[in-house]
């Protein structure tokens, strides 16, 4: 299994600012993903972080709002830009690799925008 470290664990941010969330994996993995979980809701996929190229975004999510980087096979960042209170959610990093059937998750970042 993969051990995933996600930082920060939580943050309270002012509207209009940006926050970058980091996801570090203890081993090289094929795939990395970012999910959003709005209060009391299920998880929704934001994008697939592609190593060395632009992320692949799901419908309803755009690069200008959620820029993603993945410089190598163990690290990715998600930035939430120009935040509004509607961005208050839990953001989770997830990884998958051909060595395992299931996906693994970081502990999530609880973001509150005021």
């Amino acid at each position, binding site marked *: 299994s993969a051990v995933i470290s996600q930082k920060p664990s939580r943050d309270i941010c002012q509207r209009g600012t940006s926050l970058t969330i980091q996801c570090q994996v203890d081993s090289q993995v094929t*795939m990395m993903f970012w999910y959003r979980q709005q209060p009391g*809701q299920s*998880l929704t996929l934001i994008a697939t972080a592609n190593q060395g190229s632009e992320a692949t975004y799901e419908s309803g999510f755009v690069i200008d709002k959620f820029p993603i980087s993945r410089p190598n096979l163990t690290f990715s960042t998600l930035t939430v830009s120009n935040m509004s209170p509607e961005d208050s959610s*839990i953001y*989770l990093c997830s990884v998958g690799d051909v060595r395992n059937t299931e*996906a693994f998750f970081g502990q999530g970042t609880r973001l509150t925008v005021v």
Partner: protein
Amino acid sequence: AQTVTQSQPEMSVQEAETVTLSCTYDTSESDYYLFWYKQPPSRQMILVIRQEAYKQQNATENRFSVNFQKAAKSFSLKISDSQLGDAAMYFCAYRSGSYDYKLSFGAGTTVTVRA
């Protein structure tokens, strides 16, 4: 994207009793995986159990077992001998059988365990 439906927003169970959570899904694929994840208040997503679609035998992990009905596209989770630590949100999730680890999640079921 595949649709995963959990029709029970909340379930309550007495400690040591059994509770069953329902999940249905919609797919045209023949090769896929199904999972139940548990999310306690800590936010950490914890894998409870997995089922490969090509396997007819229902998966079992200690007190957790599934009833996988492929033709009916149903995947229920049974928690036996419920413990206080089982209290959490439970998500049913679908993954394509290709080398794509994107998950489609159901809405979740909150399980409360009464002492």
